[in-house]
């Protein structure tokens, strides 16, 4: 086929592209992911029994806001990464700041707790349930996000996959905060961060294979 003929073909195939195409795909993936994560949570783990009183506490909202900020920060980065020739730069701040806030809060909380309990707070069952639960919940959200990103053109595939994982983890954190009873940042900070790190790592690994174009 001559190039001229290919151009004919492409022209005949050109349907209008909405200016919100990328945005809409991400929005759909996030809403779908949130729904699936919440359903999975209700089915497998259950919502905490004192949810109505919990929703009046600051701890509940800190956890939810953390999830929300990571989600929005992550999506902005992911959207930039999906467009070729566009550097991310400043948008990383939206992801780094909630992580930094939680990390600092975690350290402060540990420092301020009485001797002996501090390390126990951090390390007690650190590797168990919580991060793995979040990672498990994030799976449908990660699938939805990667599927949404398939028609895009990221030039850094591992990073794009990793950020998709980060967003999926944040969605899972949002759902998980409906169940998690922990109050102190020393408890939930590290675990939530780890819970988000796991799908991010998975996304980094499968990104190059799945997002290639």
């Amino acid at each position, binding site marked *: 086929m001559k*190039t*001229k003929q290919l151009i004919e*073909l*492409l022209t005949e195939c050109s*349907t209008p592209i909405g200016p919100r195409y990328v945005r809409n795909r991400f929005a759909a993936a996030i809403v779908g992911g949130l729904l699936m994560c919440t359903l999975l949570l209700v089915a497998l783990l259950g919502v905490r029994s004192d949810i109505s009183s919990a929703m009046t506490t600051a701890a509940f909202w800190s956890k939810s806001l953390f999830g929300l900020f990571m989600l929005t920060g992550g999506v902005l980065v992911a959207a930039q990464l999906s467009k070729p*020739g566009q550097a991310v730069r400043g948008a990383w701040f939206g992801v780094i700041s909630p992580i930094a806030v939680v990390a600092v809060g975690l350290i402060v909380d540990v420092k301020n707790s009485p001797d002996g309990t501090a390390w126990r707070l951090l390390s007690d069952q650190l590797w168990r349930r919580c991060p793995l639960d979040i990672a498990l919940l994030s799976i449908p959200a990660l699938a939805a996000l990667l599927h949404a990103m398939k028609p895009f*053109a990221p*030039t850094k595939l591992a990073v794009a996959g990793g950020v998709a994982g980060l967003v999926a983890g944040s969605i899972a954190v949002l759902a998980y905060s409906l169940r998690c009873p922990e109050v102190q940042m020393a408890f939930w900070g590290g675990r939530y961060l780890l819970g988000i790190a796991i799908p991010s790592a998975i996304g980094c690994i499968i990104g190059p294979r799945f997002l290639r*174009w």
Partner: protein
Amino acid sequence: MTDSLEVTWSTLLAQGNDGNSHAYKRFLESVTPYLRGLARYHCSQFRASADAEDVVQEILLAIHLKRSTWDCRRPVGPWISAIARNKLIDLMRRRGRRVEVPIDEVIDSLPYEDCIDPTVTPSIESLLRQLASPQKDIVELISLEGHTVRDAAQQLGMSEGSVRVALHRALKTLADLYRRSSK
């Protein structure tokens, strides 16, 4: 890359994305000689000159399939360059070479090379043969025989909508086949 080219191309592509197919065609036709110059330059560096027109077609196909990722508030030059660079790297991988194609080089030096259409490219021909009907028929009707979507729809007894869908799928399949051939 000159400012006037940037303005021309971004205007045409913006109109094309809005649904103006004449503008879209003019965009593709205007970009092609520059892609060709680029492809020939990089391919000759790796003694793969015969692949140059293949690369041009791959880049055009990628531009088409990924046109939703261009933010019309941003310059179109870096967007085209990033796509072209990506496809050039794919080609080099096919040739078994690891190469860094610096993105600045791609944007700044877009050599112009027009020509009366060179030989029919073997890659796309063999890939097209792998398409199933009706995708193959539609592609042949439109590209080789110069029919419009409406004519093709009438000839094949399909609706215009389903022809468009099948055509879009055929192009996506083509891109997948190109990608698989680079492994």
